[in-house]
Structure formats: structure tokens, C-alpha cells
């Protein structure tokens, strides 16, 4: 009886070990199963999902115009104080003064990419960009000014 149990244990153990080795052996002999993406080499073909949240960007059109009015809704919506909007008073052609952004300061190093600023924006001025290669040697380089120099707000965006 004892001997039967003993042999049974040995048999079952060896069989379970061989089953495990069969699994790893299968993968060893099937290189097609390899999942690795050779990342820096496939940069040209690498496509992120269109909703991927990589960083906050501010789209500009061909005539260097953006849609940000400087209402600071995003600044309020941000949980981490990532966005800081510096406004200025701009002289309109009709002589009136109008609030406009001087600098849309975006601290990528503080950003948790929660999308709150984008959903808070009333004029769709900012959106999430697909870039994900953010590593820099100096943290200060992560502080970005999103509006391009010399850009101004689009016509008709209030």
C-alpha cells in the first residue's frame, strides 16, 4: 500500500514536471509566438491608439492661430497645478482691449494625464497628443509653452 502510494507520487510528480516542460518546450520551438516589439527600430511604423494620452498639446492651424481664449477653465480643472495661463491685454483693431494668452505654460513633469483639462475646455483649444517619448536629461525641459510664438487666437472663438 505504502509502495503503491510512493510510486504513484513519483509518477504524478514526474508527469507534472514533464507537462510543464512541454509548455516551455513548445514556446522554445515556436519562435512565432515571440511577443517582443523591437521598439526604437519600429518607430516609423509604431502607431499609438488615437485616444492615447501622451501629453497636452495645443493645435495650431496654418496661419499660426490657436483656439485658446485664456479662460483658465483648464487651469482650474487640473488636479495638480500642471497648467498655468499667463494672460495679457491685447489691443483689438476696433480699439477695444481683449484678454488673450501670453503663455500657456504646461508642466509635463506634474501632469497625470487625466484628461480633465481637455474635457473642461469650452473652445476645444487643447487636446491629448500621442507622443510618448518624454525622457530628458534636465527636468526643466519638461516645462513647455504650448502656444507658438507669435500665434494668436482664431477668429470667432470666444
Amino acid at each position, binding site marked *: 500500500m505504502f509502495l503503491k502510494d510512493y510510486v504513484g507520487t*513519483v509518477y504524478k510528480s*514526474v508527469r507534472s*514536471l514533464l507537462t*510543464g*516542460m512541454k*509548455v*516551455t*518546450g513548445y*514556446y*522554445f520551438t515556436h*519562435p512565432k*509566438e*515571440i*511577443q*517582443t516589439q*523591437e521598439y526604437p527600430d519600429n518607430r516609423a511604423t509604431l502607431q499609438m491608439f488615437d485616444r492615447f494620452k501622451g501629453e497636452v498639446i495645443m493645435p495650431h492651424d496654418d496661419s499660426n492661430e490657436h483656439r485658446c481664449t485664456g479662460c483658465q477653465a483648464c487651469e482650474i480643472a487640473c488636479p495638480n497645478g500642471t497648467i498655468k495661463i499667463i494672460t495679457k491685454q491685447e489691443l483689438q483693431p476696433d480699439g477695444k482691449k481683449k484678454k488673450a494668452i501670453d503663455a500657456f505654460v504646461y508642466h509635463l513633469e506634474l501632469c497625470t494625464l487625466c484628461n480633465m483639462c481637455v474635457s473642461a475646455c469650452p473652445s476645444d483649444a487643447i487636446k491629448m497628443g500621442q507622443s510618448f517619448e518624454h525622457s530628458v536629461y534636465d527636468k526643466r525641459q519638461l516645462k513647455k509653452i504650448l502656444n507658438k510664438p507669435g500665434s494668436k487666437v482664431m477668429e470667432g472663438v470666444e
Partner: protein
Amino acid sequence: MKPLLEISLSGFASQIDAWLNAALGGGTLVVATEMVVTGVVLLGFLVVLCFFLGYMERKVAGFIEIRLGPNRVGPKGSLQIVADTVKLLMKEGITPASSDKFLFHLAPVIVVTAALLAVAPIAFAKNLQIWDLNIGLLYVSAVSSLAVIGILMAGWSSYNKYSLLGAMRSGAQIVSYELSVGLSLISIVALTGSLKISDIVMAQQDGWWIFKGHIPVLISFVIFLIASTAEINRAPFDLTEAEQELTGGYHTEYSGMKFAMFLLAEYINLFVVSAIAATIFLGGWMPFHLGHWQAFNGIMDWIPSSMWFMGKTLFVVFIIMQFRWTFPRLRIDQLLNLEWKYLLPISMVNTILVALITIMGWHF
């Protein structure tokens, strides 16, 4: 059919011997020169072999783990291990302040020396053996027991509790698993009637022991694989290092060159164990023959003997590597249970069976 590549290395060696005798006038100087030359050649071979084994391990691990393994340095990543070695050599060797410095520095040397000594009686090819001493197998198992001293020394002198625990584990592990290794060696020694490596290989001229010796030899092959994996401290028996438990065990405190020496010893041991398994169970450099089928045997003879030896050895190396990347680690008490409750009784009964086979002449 003549082998494809038949460099008679023994002839080559005797030529060198004759030339040296002529040049140096014989005597002690020749012996000394020959020793130095052999040592240098062997060391070079082993270092290259270890590079290869390291590369092989990473590639095997990579393919098993559905990744590519090293693929950046050199063609297909083959120089990765060279780059790693250079890195290790350039690194600062840190010695813990409270360690026993003398023993701390000595330990890796002893481990490597023990590993190197065990290479001596291995038959690499037909007529290529450094020292064919008449107790070859006993010598290997004797010399390999030196390594445990090095590990104990390393663990104790590091002044680190993880290291000490690892060393304690290794002592218990190696001392007990030596028994099973010895018994499975004995089954082949009984069949061959000799401890000499060349005799054992020649006895397999008409078939390897694993085919000739029925199931008992198969069992002792499996036991040898398991027990020797444990004896060289490889996963799933790597309790002395046990990264997840002891963060590196006995070599936690080692860095740079001295760490590289432990690594070198690990791979040499892996090679030695696989070579012994290939020699005693799989016929060493003997080609694979199938009865009296002359055409087939001729083709097999055409492959050089060194290729046969290396092929068989690498096959065993692969199996041991697959063990490592498939199984979880045992616990220390299970490790000892496995030895004392399963491997040792089975191999004892097995030895008796083999003795019976030998006496009755039941083997082929």
C-alpha cells in the same frame, strides 16, 4: 567512411612533445612547459565556452519566455556576454567593511579552482583528454566537493545575514545531493567495471548505456540530472542564491571581478556536469550507431567525434537550462525531503537492480 574533420589531436600533442623535447633537451622543463601550454589552452577554451553558455542561456530563456533575448551587441546579440564581462571587469570591487577580507578574496578563487580541476579527466574528443587517470569519475566527484568550501567561505566572510543563510543552505544541499550523484555514477561504473573515463566511453562502442542498460540506467540518468542540477546550485535548486528570498545568497556582497568568477565557476560546473552525463550515459564522443546498418553508421562516423561530444553535452546543458526556466524553486525542507525520501532510496534500489543486471549480464 572517414570523419569529416579528423585532426588527430593526440598526434598533434605528441608532435609538440617531440619538438619541445628536442628544443629543451627533455626533462622537467618540458613537463613544465607542457603544463603551462595545456593550462593556457584550456583556460582559453573554457572562457570561450562560458561566453557561449551564457549566450545560450539568455537565448534559451528568451525563446522560452516569448522574447528575443540579447539581440543588440554583435550579430544576433552574440557579443552581449562579452560586453557584460567587460562591464564586470571594469566595475569597482566592493569589499564590505566588516568582512573577513582574506577569506572574502579567497572564496571565489577556490570556487573557480575547484570547477577548473574537475575539467581535467573529461574526454573532449577521440584521443583528446588532458588526464585520463584511472579513477576519473571518483576524481570528478571528489574535486567538485571542494566548491562547497568556497561557497561556505564566501557566505561566512561577507558579514551579511543573507549570505550566511545562503551558505548554510548550500552546505546541507551539496553534501546530501552528492550521495545521489555518487550512486547514479556507481550504476554506470558497475556496468563498465571501470572508473576510467576512456574505458567508460569505449564500453559504449556498440551502443550508449542509456540504450543498453534498460530502465535502471534511464532512472539513474534522470536522478543524475536532478541531483547534479542541485549540486551545481542551479534553479530549481538555487536555494543558495534564491534571489526572491535571499537577494543573492552567498554572493550578495560580491561585485565586479569576484562576482564574475562565481559566474564563471557556475558555467564551468554546468559544463562539467553535462559533459559527465554525456560521457557516461550518452557515450561521450562515440557516434550514434544503429545495429549493423553500415550505411547509417558510416554517416554517423563521418561526423567528427568532438562534434558528437559537444552536441551531447549541449543537449544536456539545454535540458538543465529548461529546468531552470520552467520550474519554481523548492523550499529548503522540501529539497532535503526530495533527496532523502525520494532520490536516495530510488537510486539505492536502482543500484541494486543495476548490479543484478551486471552480474546476470542482462544488458545488451
